[in-house]
């Protein structure tokens, strides 16, 4: 087989494989932010996909938490300007509260 054909064939395999790899790459994860402000989670309800991340950032004067009612996750105490990131690794609807101020409620809906 002419060397030229071998080279062309090899290059086609390499780039063809790369294109295939790109088209089969994992979907891009989105990053969301929930602002804790005025004793509220904003937005109160957030719908995201599996693998997405949610970052809670406390801008209130008082400390807060973001704590799943089923206890599956808990940000711990977040002082003002502190934040915490959760990666959605399970589908479902997750209601959560602030442990210090339980009147504060939010929901994360994970689809995907």
């Amino acid at each position, binding site marked *: 087989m002419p060397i030229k054909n071998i080279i062309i064939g090899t290059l086609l395999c390499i780039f063809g494989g790369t294109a295939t790899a790109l088209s089969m790459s994992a979907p891009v994860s989105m990053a969301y932010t929930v602002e804790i402000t005025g004793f509220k989670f904003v937005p109160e309800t957030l719908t995201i996909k599996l693998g997405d991340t949610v970052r809670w950032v406390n801008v209130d*004067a008082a*400390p807060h938490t973001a704590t799943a009612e089923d206890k599956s996750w808990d940000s711990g105490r977040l002082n003002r300007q502190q934040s915490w990131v959760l990666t959605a690794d399970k589908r479902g609807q997750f209601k959560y509260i602030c442990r210090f101020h339980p009147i504060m409620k939010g929901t994360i809906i994970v689809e995907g």
Partner: protein
Amino acid sequence: MLKKFLVTTTAIFGLALTGAVAADDGPSDMQIAHIAYTAGNLDIRYAHLALAKSTNPAVLEFAQLMVQDHAAVNDQALALLKKLGASPEDNPTSQKLTADARQKLNELADLHGVNFDRAYAANELAYHKFVNKTVEKTFIPNTDNAEFKSLLGQALTVFKVHENHAAMMVRTLR
């Protein structure tokens, strides 16, 4: 007895805080800072008394929240003052608040069981009502520094939640 306690508490704090309003030009930013900081610290002292005396879970939870939230707000106030290179200014209103709180703490310390719980809850409700009203109607409108005004606004949001929580506690303890 609870009604008399509530009326007395209201009178004491009303007089102390309106003293600040009665000044010729109103309190300065640094006097307001001192009053607000003092008011927060006094509520922490009430809370520590409750944590020492009460066995009621709702009262203990509220008191713990008061320590946490007022300490957090006061820490932020101190940080802002440091940033501004300013010092809170002691004043007759802060001194009266402190003296009156000392008297109230002595009264509360003589109470026990559910009588203490009810008196503590009533005092918290009255205290937060007057402080919140003063912060909202007098301090915030008369504060010159924008950052300090913003902090007072954020603190007021916290304290209004406390007021509602105290009202719920009073109802629960009836």
